[in-house]
C-alpha cells in the first residue's frame, strides 16, 4: 500500500467514526426533546392542589389525586402477586431445574409471554379474573392482569442475576457442608439481590405505564371517591391520560400535559432508583 492510499484510508476511517459517533448522539435527542417538551408544557399545571385534589367540572378542572392513588395501588398490587412468584420461578430455573427439554420449554414460554401485546393481556384478564373468577372490574383483577404481564421480566432478570453469581461460590459453599437451599439463601440470593431488585423495578415500571391491560379489568373513567377495597375499580394515571385526551371535550391542555408529566416522573423515578441500585452494587461487588 503506498502512502496516499494509506492516508485516504485513514481519512475514510475517521469520517466513518465521526458519523457513527454523531448517529449515537442523535439517539438521545428524542428522549431529551420529549422530556423537555413535557416538562415545559406540563409544569404550569403542577401545584399542590393538582396533586392532592379530585377532578372537578367533568375533569376539566381540579386535580388528579384519585388517579395517582390508583396507580400506586395497582403498582403495589402487582408487586404483591408478581414479585414472590417471579423470584421463586427465577430461583427454580437458575438453581434447581435440570437442563432438559422441560426447562427449555419453560424458558421458551417465558420469552413468548414477554412478546404478547398488552391488549391481549387485558382481554385475558377480562375473561379470567373479571368474568370467570368473578372479581369484577377491580384493583384485584387489574393487579393480577398486570402481574402476569410483569412476570416474564421479573423471572428472566432474577434468573439472569442468579446465573451471573460465579459457580465457584456454590461449589465452595457445598464443600463446607451447606445444603443447596442454604447456599442459595446465604450466598446466591444476597449476591443476586441488586440485580433482582433492578429487574423487579423495571418490570413494575412497565406495569405502571400500561393502559390496555387495565382498560377492561380495573380502570374507571371517573370515580367521585377513592377505592375502599381491592374489589373496587379505580382511576389510574395512564387511563386517565387516555380519557382526558380523547373523551372529554373542552379539556384544558395544561391538565393533560400535567398528568403526563406526573406519570413520567413516576416512571423515570423508578428507573433512576433501579440505576442507582445497580451502580452501587456494581461498585461493591467483589467478583
Amino acid at each position, binding site marked *: 500500500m503506498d502512502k496516499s492510499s494509506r492516508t485516504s484510508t485513514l481519512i475514510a476511517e475517521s469520517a466513518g467514526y465521526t458519523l457513527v459517533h454523531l448517529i449515537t448522539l442523535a439517539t438521545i435527542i428524542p428522549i431529551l426533546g420529549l422530556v423537555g417538551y413535557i416538562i415545559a408544557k406540563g409544569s404550569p399545571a403542577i401545584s399542590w392542589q393538582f396533586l392532592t385534589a379530585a377532578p372537578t367540572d367533568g375533569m376539566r378542572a381540579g386535580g388528579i389525586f384519585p388517579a395517582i392513588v390508583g396507580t400506586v395501588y395497582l403498582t403495589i398490587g402487582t408487586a404483591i402477586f408478581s414479585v414472590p412468584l417471579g423470584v421463586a420461578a427465577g430461583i427454580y430455573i437458575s438453581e434447581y431445574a435440570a437442563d432438559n427439554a422441560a426447562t427449555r420449554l419453560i424458558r421458551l414460554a417465558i420469552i413468548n409471554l414477554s412478546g404478547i401485546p398488552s391488549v391481549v393481556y387485558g382481554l385475558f384478564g377480562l375473561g379470567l379474573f373479571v368474568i370467570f373468577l368473578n372479581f369484577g372490574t377491580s384493583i384485584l383483577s387489574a393487579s393480577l392482569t398486570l402481574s402476569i404481564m410483569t412476570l416474564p421480566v421479573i423471572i428472566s432478570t432474577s434468573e439472569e442475576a442468579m446465573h451471573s453469581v460465579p459457580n*465457584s*461460590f*456454590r*461449589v*465452595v*459453599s*457445598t*464443600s*463446607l*457442608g*451447606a*445444603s443447596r437451599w*442454604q447456599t442459595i439463601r*446465604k*450466598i446466591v440470593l*444476597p*449476591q443476586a439481590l441488586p440485580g433482582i431488585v433492578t429487574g423487579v423495578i423495571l418490570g413494575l415500571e412497565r406495569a405502571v405505564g400500561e393502559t390496555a391491560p387495565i382498560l377492561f379489568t380495573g380502570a374507571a373513567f371517573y370515580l367521585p371517591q377513592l377505592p375502599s377495597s381491592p374489589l373496587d375499580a379505580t382511576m389510574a394515571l395512564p387511563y386517565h391520560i387516555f380519557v382526558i385526551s380523547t373523551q372529554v371535550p373542552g379539556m384544558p391542555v395544561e391538565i393533560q400535559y400535567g398528568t403526563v408529566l406526573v406519570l413520567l416522573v413516576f416512571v423515570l423515578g423508578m428507573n433512576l432508583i433501579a440505576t442507582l441500585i445497580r451502580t452501587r452494587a456494581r461498585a461493591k461487588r*467483589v*467478583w
Partner: protein
Amino acid sequence: MNKFRIEDLSVRYLDNNESLRKINMEIEENAITVLFGPANGGKSTFLRTLNRLNDLADVKEMSGKVIFHEDNILEKTTDVIELRRRIGMVFSRPVPLPLSIYENVAYGLIMEGEHDKKKLDNAVENALRKAVLWDELYDRLQDSAYAISGGQQQRLCLARVLALEPEVIMLDEPTSALDPVATAKIEELLNQLKATYTIILAPHNIQQAARMADYAAFFLMGELIEFSSGKEMFLNPRDRRTQEYVSGRYG
C-alpha cells in the same frame, strides 16, 4: 491405619471428558498422600469423588467403592453434608465467599446450626491460629475476605476448612495461584497439620510432589499407574511411564 480404602473406582462424565478407571488404593491416616501426574489425569475427579462434590457435576457413571469408616460413601444413603464436614477441601484458586473474614471461617459451623457467639468466636480464633493467620488478621475480622492478599486468602480457605475440625483435608493444587513465599507458607503448614489430619494433596508441579509426599500416587489418563511411598516413587519408580514422567520426559 488407613482412612480411605478405594476399590475399583470408576467415574465417567456425561461428555466422557475426564474420567477414572478402576482405581484401587488406600489413603493412610496422619500422612500426606500426593496425587500427581499430567493434566486431565483424573486427580480432581478423584478428590471430588471422596467428598461427593461430584454430585454437582454431570457424572454419568460411578462404580466401585470408597470405604470411609466402614461405609461405602458412594451409596445413595450417605449423608453427604455430614461427609463434606468431615472431609474438607481447598481449591486451586482461593475463593473466599463474598462475606467478611470472620463469616468465612465460621461459615461451615453456622451452616451446621451453631449460633452460640462464644463458641463461634473460639472456633474462628482456633482455626485462624492453626492456619497461622491470627496474628495477621485478628484486628480486621469484620473486613471483607477480598481485602487480604492472595496468599492470605488461600490460608483463610484452609482455616475455613479447619474450623469444621475435619478428619481429612484435600487440597487441589492449592498453591497454583500463589507466589513462592506464600507457597512455602502453605507447605510448611501442611507439614505441621499432618500430625492431626489426613492430608490428600494434588500438587501443581512435580517438585512440590516430591517435597511433600509421604505417599504418592501417579495418575495418567484416568488410571492409577503407580502407588508407593514418596521416597520410592521419586527415587526408584517401578513403572516405565512413571520413570519418564518423574525424569521430565513428558507432562
